């Protein structure tokens, strides 16, 4: 086993992420602030007359791995699209505005954190590309969810989804480095070949911790912001240890 291979162990990647975060405290601060902003938006929405879909946490008997393709913060109160119909203009503006502000804050904070951890300059096109991907994933399937009976029923699907999640761990970092979506996907896929189990361990540890912290009432998104920083640190560690040059 080479030295480079051993550094891509689960513990090695988590330790590297810790060191990178310690060296760049602004990255953690940005994501914690974004988490606090999401928590504030959640707090307001949960007390408003607007319907919200809550986050089912560990106290609800739900165990899940909350690990998305992009670095993100778990919200405990999202407004379902169908609930926006026929809202009075004041509440429509409030609901859409809060969701939008929270989303933009998380995108900005995660892109900023990744750029600091990757020691690169964040450009406007890279930020826009990252935000667009985050928005698309936000309305699609962006989080690994395997729980209860679903484990038995959908094992092949879950395994396939997990493989994709593991192989795309560096993807958000590559977007921040300025690569196109296609290039970022391709390079993530190739550079993680042979490191699947180590990255699976990272996804499991970070995703489970994210779920546990996000389960906390009110402060859940702040805890999720902390785990988003770890996620960003891991992304930076993987990219730097697989050592690929940026191909624009």
């Amino acid at each position: 086993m080479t030295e480079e291979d051993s550094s891509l162990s689960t513990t090695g990647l988590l330790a590297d992420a810790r060191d990178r975060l310690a060296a760049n405290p602004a990255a953690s601060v940005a994501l914690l602030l974004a988490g606090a902003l999401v928590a504030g938006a959640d707090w307001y929405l949960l007390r408003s007359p607007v319907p919200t879909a809550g986050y089912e946490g560990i106290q609800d008997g739900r165990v899940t791995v909350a690990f998305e393709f992009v670095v993100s913060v778990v919200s405990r109160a999202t407004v379902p699209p169908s609930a926006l119909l026929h809202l009075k203009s004041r509440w429509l503006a409030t609901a859409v505005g809060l969701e939008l502000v929270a989303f933009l804050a998380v995108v900005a904070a995660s892109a900023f954190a990744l750029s600091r951890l990757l020691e690169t300059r964040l450009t406007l096109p890279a930020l826009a590309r990252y935000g667009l991907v985050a928005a698309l994933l936000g309305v699609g399937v962006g989080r690994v969810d395997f729980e209860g009976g679903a484990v038995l029923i959908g094992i092949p699907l879950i395994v396939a989804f997990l493989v994709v999640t593991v192989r795309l761990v560096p993807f958000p970092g590559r977007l921040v480095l300025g690569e196109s979506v296609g290039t970022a996907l391709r390079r993530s896929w190739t550079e993680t070949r042979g490191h699947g189990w180590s990255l699976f361990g990272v996804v499991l540890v970070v995703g489970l911790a994210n779920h546990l912290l996000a389960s906390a009432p009110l402060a859940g998104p702040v805890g999720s912001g902390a785990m988003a920083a770890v996620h960003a640190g891991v992304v930076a560690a993987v990219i730097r240890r697989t050592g690929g040059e940026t191909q624009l």
Partner: protein
Amino acid sequence: MAQHDPAGRNHAPSATPPKDGAAVRWKREIDIDRGFGYAPTPIVAEGRVYAAGRELLVLDAETGAVEFRVARRSRTPPAVASARAYRSPTLAVTSSRGVTGLHANGGLRILGSHLGVTRWKGGDSDRQTAFFGAEPQTSPPVVAGGTILVAATDELRAIDASSGKTRWRKDVDTRRPAVHRGTVYAAEYPGGVRGYDLETGEDRFDAEVDVAPPLSVTAGPDQLVVATDDGLAGLSYDGETRWEFAPEEFSRDYGAVALAEGVAYAGFRGEDDSYLVAVDAADGSERWRSETAPEETPQFAPPSVADGVVYVPTEDGGMAAVDAGDGHLRWQFGKDADTHGPWSPAALVGETLYAIGDGHVYALEEP
């Protein structure tokens, strides 16, 4: 909502439904479960008729034209509640899966289809009311202001009609509650009648019925009429049992009571036959008994009262109109055509009686 108002009186004081006979203004086919029990009462609000069955059918109340359908099976009447964040009311639908808030006007209409009908989902699918020997049922939702009250096994829950969030919940085994002057009254078998603040859920009232354990409660202007194991009882808002009506030859179990102009109307089971009985709510004396008995599967159907007439779905089929003054049968409709089980209780609005019978939603008016 079911039983007309939050108090559960089943009295429509401003309605003048068909009195001397019934003619069909319109009827519309509905997909309902064919069973022994009566169908859920259709409810009328915002110029629409909402009828629950294997699907939720929404009709124009004036013409009977189909406005939209929702693929949602329910065995209880829905309820319409004002929602403070919305330009249109919330339609609360209960099922064995819990309570769901829908857009009462059907959500987004695109190319003839209604999309995004659901506003919120609430409740607990594990909680449902089951009657011995019958299919599990849920109590109909009760609306008071912007609050939806739902009784399920071992709990009473108050839900914000706009957000779907639970305002408060109580561990109490009860059926449809009744609301009067900001207090929610619930019969807790076999304990007594409890009262909770509508807004906060704070305990407001606690009284035992001296004569027998309570089964359900109707809130009158100056007293509660409590259906008990033995019959009916009058319970003052001070918690004092004023009277009891429990003749030895009668029995009854669950089943709602109508209360109009100082008279309570309810179904009773005799030794051989069942009866619709009118009881003076001032002293508990019997005014009359009619052999036009309400359908009693799975429980006595609630009578509906307006303009001196009591309307009941009958045991022998169809809808009957009984004179509130002396109990004589004024007319009966649909007795022979009943092939889909008993008729539903009636909803009385304006000059029209709405009910489900013979696989159709009917709008009946004076001939």
